């Protein structure tokens, strides 16, 4: 079964007093694992609800594999949703829950039971068929919800913050499971979350939403290394943001910290915002990208790296230094940006 492609055109959702979606357009590739990432209130849950058919948009169109499904009820869409609280039917057994969708399709009991067993095996819970939901742990319930949604072979699987209720270790494990299942099954996965680490670990495409609009879209590498906006630069990890002016040759920007080479040429003399990731700043650099001397104000050893905050006059810079650098508080360091690692981003520092 291959996944369907989704096309969203100009979705608007207006609630009294609040515009949840303000003209969202995007294309989701068939079979992809797309993560819709954003802070709370960004509209990501509304977007998913519209894709699933639980909410009707004020205007705009949703097509799945070319078919307009904007007004189609959830039961008749080729999508299935895994809800945030799993929504497992408490009065039914695991087997009855998982088989429910097939029951609705009038699949015969024997056929249904064998498919249920298969589905449970795929999520690694083969022997729980007759157990009651109340007896299962959070992680188990999550997998049952997944099995229940996948057994009906949807073209698109929608996941609403599915890992939010799990603890960190379990979350990591489930992320691996989700990837494995996605690769096995081939359905298009659309997964909503506010956790950027989760997004990067699972997605082949990340869609960043903010205030009801799409802010940035691309693979994890693209979105992380080439953020379009200041917002997405700061949301996808730590980032230093500073204002600067493009130089005459367009290849660098002059900032209050020094001159830094930019990854893509800009218009000479333009006022821009520049984003520099902490891990792209090195110690002891001289020459191009040199930022001069700074005093280490805070140094936290995080195991793999040092997270350092350095200050100069009233400026502050966030740096991620290698384990071997052994930086101490009060130390004076020479910092520099690796060539062409600064990015010009849209938006301002607010």
């Amino acid at each position, binding site marked *: 079964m291959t996944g369907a492609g989704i096309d969203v055109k100009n979705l608007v959702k207006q609630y009294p007093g609040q515009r949840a979606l303000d003209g969202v357009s995007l294309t989701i590739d068939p079979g992809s694992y797309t993560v819709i990432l954003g802070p709370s209130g960004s509209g990501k849950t509304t977007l998913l609800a519209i894709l699933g*058919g*639980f*909410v*009707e948009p004020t205007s705009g169109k949703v097509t799945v594999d070319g078919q307009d499904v904007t007004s189609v*009820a959830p039961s008749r869409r080729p999508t299935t949703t895994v809800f945030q609280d799993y929504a497992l039917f408490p009065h039914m057994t695991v087997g009855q829950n998982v088989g429910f969708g097939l029951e609705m399709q009038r699949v015969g009991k024997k056929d249904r039971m064998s498919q249920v067993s298969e589905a449970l095996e795929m999520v690694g819970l083969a022997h729980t068929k007759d157990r009651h939901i109340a007896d299962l742990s959070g992680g188990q319930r999550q997998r049952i919800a997944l099995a229940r949604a996948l057994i009906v072979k949807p073209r698109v699987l929608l996941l609403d913050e599915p890992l939010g209720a799990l603890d960190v270790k379990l979350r990591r494990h489930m992320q691996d499971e989700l990837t494995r299942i996605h690769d096995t099954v081939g359905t298009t996965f659309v997964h909503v979350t506010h956790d950027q680490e989760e997004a990067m670990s699972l997605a082949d495409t990340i869609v960043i939403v903010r205030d009801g609009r799409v802010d940035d879209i691309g693979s994890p590498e693209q979105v992380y290394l080439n953020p379009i906006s200041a917002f997405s630069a700061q949301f996808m990890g730590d980032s230093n943001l500073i204002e600067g002016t493009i130089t005459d040759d367009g290849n660098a920007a002059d900032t209050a910290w020094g001159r830094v080479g930019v990854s893509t040429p800009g218009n000479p003399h333009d006022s821009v915002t520049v984003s520099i990731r902490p891990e792209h700043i090195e110690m002891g650099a001289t020459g191009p990208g040199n930022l001069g001397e700074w005093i280490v104000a805070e140094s936290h050893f995080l195991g793999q790296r040092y997270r350092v905050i350095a200050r100069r006059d009233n400026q502050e810079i966030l740096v991620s230094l290698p384990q071997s650098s052994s930086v101490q508080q009060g130390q004076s360091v020479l910092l520099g940006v690796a060539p062409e690692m600064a990015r010009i981003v849209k938006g301002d520092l607010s």
Partner: protein
Amino acid sequence: MINRRSWQGWVLVGPALLVTLVLFAAPMVMVILTSLYRRTGGTTNRTLSLDNYLRLATDATIHQALLNSLEVVGLTVIFSTLVAYPLAYIIAFRVPAKWQALVLLLTVVPFWTSYVVRSYSWLLVLAKNGVINQTLQSWNLIGEPLTLANTRFATVLAFVHFFVMVSTLTIYASLRQIPRNLPLAARDLGASPFYVFARVTLPLSIPGVTVGAFLTFVLAIGDYITPQIVGGGNELLLPQLLMLQVSRRGDFPLAAAMALVLLVIVAAVYAVSAKNLTLERKR
């Protein structure tokens, strides 16, 4: 999608509304209408008039009945509250938590017997040769048996017996809603147990008292059985008067007018106490 289904909501709610309309609203309209008819010469005169209300306003018997009802119900409310409050307090704060539900259940037990039979039981307990008189006589506390049955005392006693249950439940619920740390905070600030009760516990339990009193009032004022059986029908209360019009005189219009008076009294009491009639915690 939600709004589109609003009409489906009406379909689901429809049957209940229809039933309420047919079995409640229509009869109430009939009562109002009937109260504007008159019973003359054995038949019902359907020209609208306010005669019945005039009678209610001027007839001394009716005034007396109204007064009697208010007095009896008033006494009932006062005594049930007085008896119920300490009981509710004891259950809420002195009984171990896991037994509280069971103890509450015990207070509700009289409710499970037949109302009619229970009323007759009281009659027997209070009769000249009933349990109380026999016991008092055998202990030589009295010479002649006391007249207890078929009196206002009996009616109030039987009422209180039943309504203590109602008030105990509501006051208990109210007491349990008081956050545990409020009395502790008061003690911490130097208040004696008496002050803690008077200034913290009691005021915060007033909603429970009010709800219980209101329920008692509404249920008691329309109660026909207890005054009839236990009180012997000796004292004319509103329900008695109404039933008299219906069964002996066949004067439905007058009875309808009385029914409306009853409704108005209850509505008035509700209006007065409405803002206190919730057991939800005030923030």
